[in-house]
């Protein structure tokens, strides 16, 4: 069954703001496909984003949408989930936004286990501002502020999210969009803080500086790096160096979800307001 | 003559000086239909930093809640006493824990000073060091008569957890007794001099009345 994408889009806002060949469109398409699988109503969904290329995604979807400040999508999404616990709240933002300037909010939302779906559109670079290195830029690769090759270690988003207490953690990539859609759907369905590390491709800012300026070449490069979780189990540490392991890494159905825990705390007695 | 009294409860964080001030102010408001304010000053040091609670009780609305002409000061710590004694009026009543605060002979002439081992008594005779502030409240009320002690008892009953009420009531009563003993002692020492000299007069109902404040 094909997906009626225009149904979920603000079609008058097209074409997309992203560069031709950008991987972000693949991630957004996978997300809409996952939502279509779930038959969720547009009125029931809120997409919140921060600042950056990926964060512009919120403008294109015909949901409730809030384009916040740099790094601040997660606390905004947290508040909206608390205000309307029955609505589905999705954060769609980039690696710099969510892991650098918004890193503190990210780990605390994981810890809190609030039922929001955090899609880290991870293209390893600050695209919009001109290709500066981000917390996920692979060591050795070039960026506009690391022309000699990155000396800064990078975050493993999966390990970070799991360590911080997220109860659903997966990684997919634009090289395997069908699998990515599957991980996104499972993340959306999960009742708790879910994190999907969605490896995207920025040929303009990252690829061009690293001999992968052609978008197709860059997606091929990502595909060549990708190893599924099952296959990774039999590889040695050395063999896994420089590889991207994809799959669902963690799901905890026991940990209490925050909005639910708060609801249980509440005993509404509205008439008892002071005075 | 409109009633007005300024009190300061000074010590270090953890001694309960804030609560002592609150109890006196609440008594005046809830049971004596007077205006009262309590404004605390403290530091970010949760335990051991210099703290004070200023309480003003008046027949008139209180505009400025910081005490500037003190009629009474409780001091449970030397450093805090030294920091905050500057606002005491001449002949003001000063109650100190005399194990913890030293007062010079000159200051003893300036003020009407009462010394008592408040904290030690709370610890060994009442049996709970945390009741020292309530013991001090008992002494304050008995020495100043600024509020009625029966009214204070009502506030204590409403504010203190049932499990701790008995020991606090014991502390309060011991404070009253200790204050009476000190007053008697002072009367004997002075042998004929007036107990409350200067600007204070003992009114018929034993309330503590002050002449209008001299402008400074």
């Amino acid at each position, binding site marked *: 069954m094909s997906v009626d994408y225009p149904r979920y889009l603000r079609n008058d806002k097209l074409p997309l703001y992203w560069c031709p060949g950008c991987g972000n469109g693949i991630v957004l398409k996978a997300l809409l496909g996952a939502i279509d699988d779930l038959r969720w109503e547009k009125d029931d969904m809120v997409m919140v984003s921060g600042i950056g290329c990926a964060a512009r995604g919120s403008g294109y979807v015909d949901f409730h*949408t809030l384009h916040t400040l740099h790094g601040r999508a997660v606390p905004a999404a947290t508040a*909206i989930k608390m205000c309307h616990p029955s609505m589905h709240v999705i954060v769609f933002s980039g690696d710099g936004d969510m892991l650098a300037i918004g890193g*503190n909010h990210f780990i*605390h939302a994981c810890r809190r286990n609030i039922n929001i779906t955090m899609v880290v559109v991870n293209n390893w670079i600050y695209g919009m501002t001109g290709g500066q290195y981000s917390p996920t830029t692979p060591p050795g690769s070039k960026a506009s502020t690391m022309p000699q090759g990155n000396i800064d270690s990078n975050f493993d988003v999966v390990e970070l999210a799991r360590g911080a207490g997220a109860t659903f953690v997966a990684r997919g990539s634009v090289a395997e969009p069908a699998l990515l859609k599957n991980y996104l759907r499972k993340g959306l369905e999960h009742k708790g803080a879910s994190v999907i590390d969605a490896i995207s491709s920025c040929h303009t800012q990252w690829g061009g500086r690293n001999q992968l300026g052609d978008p197709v070449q860059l997606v091929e490069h990502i595909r060549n790096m990708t190893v599924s979780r099952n296959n990774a189990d039999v590889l040695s540490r050395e063999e896994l160096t420089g590889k991207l392991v994809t799959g669902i890494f963690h799901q905890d159905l026991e940990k209490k979800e925050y909005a639910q825990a708060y609801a249980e705390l509440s005993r509404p007695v509205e008439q008892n307001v002071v005075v | 003559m409109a009633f007005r009294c300024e009190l300061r409860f000074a010590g270090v964080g953890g001694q309960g000086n804030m609560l002592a001030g609150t109890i006196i102010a609440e008594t005046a408001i809830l049971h004596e239909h007077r205006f009262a304010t309590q404004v605390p000053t403290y530091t970010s040091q949760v335990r051991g930093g210099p703290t004070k609670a200023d309480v003003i009780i008046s027949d008139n609305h209180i505009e400025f809640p910081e005490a500037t002409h003190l009629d009474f000061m409780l001091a449970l710590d030397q450093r805090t006493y030294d920091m905050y004694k500057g606002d005491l009026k001449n002949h003001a009543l000063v109650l100190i824990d005399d194990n913890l605060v030293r007062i010079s002979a000159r200051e003893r002439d300036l003020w009407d000073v009462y010394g008592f081992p408040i904290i030690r008594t709370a610890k060994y005779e009442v049996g709970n060091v945390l009741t020292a502030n309530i013991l001090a409240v008992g002494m304050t009320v008995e020495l100043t008569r600024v509020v009625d002690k029966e009214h204070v008892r009502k506030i204590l009953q409403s504010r203190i957890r049932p499990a701790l009420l008995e020991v606090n009531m014991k502390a309060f009563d011991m404070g009253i007794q200790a204050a009476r003993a000190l007053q008697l002692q002072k009367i004997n020492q002075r042998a004929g001099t007036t107990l409350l000299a200067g600007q204070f007069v003992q009114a018929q109902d034993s309330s503590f009345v002050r002449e209008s404040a001299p402008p400074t």
Partner: protein
Amino acid sequence: MADVQIMNGNQLIAEAALVAGCRFYAGYPITPSSEIPELLARRMPEVGGIFMQLEDEIASIVAAAAASYAGYKSMTASSGPGISLKQEGIGMACMMELPLVIVDVMRGGPSTGLPTRASQSDYMQTRWGTHGDHMIIAVAPGTLLECYTETIRAFNMAERYRTPVIILSDATLAHLSSGVTLPPRSALEIVERQQPTVDPANYRPYETSPTNPVPPLPNRENFPRYRFHMTGLNKDATGFPTENPASVQADENRMINKIMDYTGAIESFEHYQLDDAQVAVIAYGSNANAARVAIKEARSQGLKVGMFRPITVWPFPFQQVMELGRKFKHIIVSELNLGQMIHEVQRALQGRSELHGVLQAAGTPIRPQQILQKIREVSA
């Protein structure tokens, strides 16, 4: 006096927020604002509201603004260092035109400053803390009762003008406890945000008309069926970004004018014994109480002094102060900082009066005697 309640300024602000309809609070622990979250942590679940202690000050203001986007009346509270961090969120709420109440319990500064001591040194930060052209409403309660009534007024103005409103309290007012008789609820005006009348498909979050410069915004009940976009970028009537110069200029002007055209309704001030006065004192917040005692004492000594006390401190009561300049040869400004509002006063006086300051940044309140002394000097 059965209806007397003993509360401090912070508790009164928190209770007033609930009465005003606030059902979302997010904050981060900071002295001297603590009693506000402590009270709301207990009370919010009882009234079907949400209390959140978040990971930092920035998360708190962004969450409070997002709750407002989601239809809730919402609030955050902090003190100077936290308000410094919140500035980007205040700017976002200005740009998105989200109703929001921000309590600033002022303490000494800059930096960590004097965590437990009184100050009024956030006066200018309140006005110009966030970047970009914008207008802000700020109220400075001077008494415990005003902590209550001004908080309700702050929520009402936030909803009416779709804007953040700042309550400038201070450490003295925050921790002053005394008996307060609160007005009955029936006597309080509670403003609800204007609701869209168009069907959801035609709703535009910034659609204004010449007669209504403040567009409707869905409340908690209506939010789920009204889908719209909001951004911190300059926006057009639809809520989507625009860089069209004419459109941006018009929107920037409108955001300022939606407040400045209504200063008559927003302004609040007190004239205290000004009618026959020869010297005027200008003071606000808890410091005005020291001025009041000084004025009483001065009058008992035959000196004719009065006070102008702004309660709405932003927008600055320019017209009011300009008129004082026509009447008074000497004007004394007293504030608990080294000179902030005095600059606004100077601008409004346009050189008409001689201006004197009683300024202090010692962490202790200005005493009535200090203001009295200045009154004597000026009157001599």
